[in-house]
């Protein structure tokens, strides 16, 4: 039983982390109609900044805060310099343009930090396990990821549902032209939203850094999963992204932990332990396929066009 609870916590932690990435992606996609493949690069930049600033300041928390601000600035700069040229053009142009950005960021990181990658060591108070239930210990760091991500989710909810900016964001997601026609400074709104998305990606990256280390191209694999989440959740919907991210997190983690045992019931132990990881890594794509069949618009489509 404690194992099951622990695996659920692992799934929750993974899901919440994915939510941070997917929220930015879905906001940018929903509001600006922009396919941003370079979202994973911002995740990587956040991790590199955090490792660097933490080494300079000798404090993990201070490093993380500085990295978050720096990624926000980089994100807004990318929007002003590069993304503005892409609005209103074909999606293929977005893909090409932002793919170019991936190459640019990878090479820039290689030039600045070198090819070896960095590590972001945790302070000792995070690098242990804490007792959360009698007889059950859980990684303090993963627990803090859960807490921070939940706080960010609440913040996003309040921002999107309860503030004026949030109203504009929602309006932008359902009808961009109308928002512009009503005299809203759409340029500024776009820059802010893109910066927010970048900061969320950066936060995800810097929180993953102590677990996965910091390396070039670290954002590429996880970006695919983030796209899966935006598709499952419904493009442009932050609430959809939240639910879908948790679904994906649980399906992936529980699949990895219980599929080998399930397969052993029907296959030889050797075949089961080989086939299970392959099958477990396909589960989230199966989930996406099923959702697409049942609800092609995603679970929570933002606009009813």
């Amino acid at each position, binding site marked *: 039983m404690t194992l099951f609870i622990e695996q659920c916590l692992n799934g929750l932690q993974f899901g919440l982390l994915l939510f941070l990435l997917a929220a930015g992606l879905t906001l940018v996609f929903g509001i600006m109609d922009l396919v941003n493949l370079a979202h994973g690069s911002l995740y990587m930049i956040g991790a590199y900044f955090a490792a660097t600033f933490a080494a300079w300041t000798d404090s993990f928390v201070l490093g993380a805060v500085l990295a978050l601000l720096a990624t926000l600035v980089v994100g807004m700069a990318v929007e002003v310099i590069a993304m503005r040229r892409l609005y209103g053009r074909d999606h293929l142009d977005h893909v090409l343009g932002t793919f170019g950005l991936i190459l640019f960021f990878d090479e820039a990181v290689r030039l600045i930090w070198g*090819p070896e990658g960095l590590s972001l060591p945790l302070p000792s108070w995070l690098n242990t*396990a804490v007792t959360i239930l009698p007889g059950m210990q859980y990684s303090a760091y993963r627990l803090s990821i859960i807490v921070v991500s939940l706080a960010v989710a609440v913040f996003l909810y309040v921002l999107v549902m309860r503030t004026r900016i949030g109203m504009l964001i929602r309006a932008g997601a359902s009808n961009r032209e109308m928002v512009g026609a009503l005299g809203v400074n759409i340029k500024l709104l776009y820059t802010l939203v893109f910066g927010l998305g970048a900061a969320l990606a950066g936060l995800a990256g810097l929180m993953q850094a102590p*677990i996965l*280390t910091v390396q070039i191209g670290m954002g590429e694999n996880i970006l695919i999963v983030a796209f899966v989440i935006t598709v499952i959740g419904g493009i442009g919907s932050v609430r959809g992204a939240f639910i879908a991210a948790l679904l994906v997190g649980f399906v992936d983690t529980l699949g*990895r932990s219980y599929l080998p045992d399930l397969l052993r019931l029907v296959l030889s132990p050797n075949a089961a332990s*080989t086939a*299970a990881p392959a099958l477990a*890594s396909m589960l989230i794509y199966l989930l996406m396929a099923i959702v697409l069949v049942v609800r092609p618009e995603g679970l929570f489509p933002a606009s009813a066009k």
Partner: protein
Amino acid sequence: MRKTLLAAGTALLLAAGPAMAQQKSIKIGFVSTFSGPVAVIGNDMRNSFELALDHMGRKMGGLPVEVIYEDDGFKPEVGKQKTQKLIESDKVDFISGYIWSNVLLASIKPVVDSKTFMVIANAGASQVAGELCSPYVFSTSWQNDQTPEAMGLYMNQKGVNSVFLIGPNYAAGKDMLAGVSHTFKGKVVGQELTTWPAQLDFSAELAKAKAANPDAIFVFYPGKAGVQFLAQYAQAGLKGKIPLYTAFTIDETSLPLQKDLALGVPGAQEWVNDLPNDANKKFVADYMKKYPGHRPSFYGAQSYDAANLIASAVTATKGNLTDKEALRKAFEKADFKSVRGNFKFGNNHIPIQNFYLQDVVKDAKGDYVLKTVATIVKDYQDASHSKCPMN
């Protein structure tokens, strides 16, 4: 004009004639990973191979050496393409390198079919030592099972009664986990294979290992994955509770990132940087002189040996590469000063060699270094050799 062309053509033909009969230079193809997160390993192998060439004056048997390095991008299909390109269009005389067992398994057929001599500098897929063994394929590393088998022996010495095994789901990962089970006398209470190389978060596997409550965890994660595993093992609160035993998880390419996390975690290896033979002292000292800020790893040591093995065969046959039989015999002698101390080849062309226990310590300068603690097993031969029909 036509006359000059004709004359030039004749001259070219004349020049080409003798070259076919007699070797003018030695061309070596070297396939490894030079891009992406594991490029540090490929770079270490290239650095060591280059250093070996420097030490022999960039000549083998009096002939100048040219090396073509190709990047496999960490992908079996790319490795195979690059291997075919080296053989078919570059027409290399020898081929070396190969970090990954799955890349090796994809690439080996074109090499053997073309009867090109291959010296594997790392990958140790058990099939290549057994049923796929070939007169043209040699290794300066090991068969995958050997190192974890040595670790299994060490765990017996330490009185470990139960172990949980974790490793990646590809050719080498399966060999490694099987290897521990060959020699370990206690109980294997669980085994987890993870998607390779995409999965980097081992939370689910660590939770299962913890729940199984074994005496020890054995793990095989080469390259960057080793850094991630050690970090997550500490974060899960397992450090100091369930001891970790490793193979190919801690080395000089991963230590700069693992740092404190690697202290006190034992590993088995056929080469350690402080082995006291002269060839090794020279290799390690000159490597650190030529590449300041870097230390050679076992990947590099095996590549250095690969260059020297090729040189020994070329020298013994006086640069006559057409007599494949003589060349094979020269290779089989392993007549060179290996940095691990001299070794013999088994019938399957895999070294019969010692395996050492290594540990991580901080040296006087505060750097993290590996040091030899003990010899676990001497002159150890791999189990697959009986499946190899050569003798």
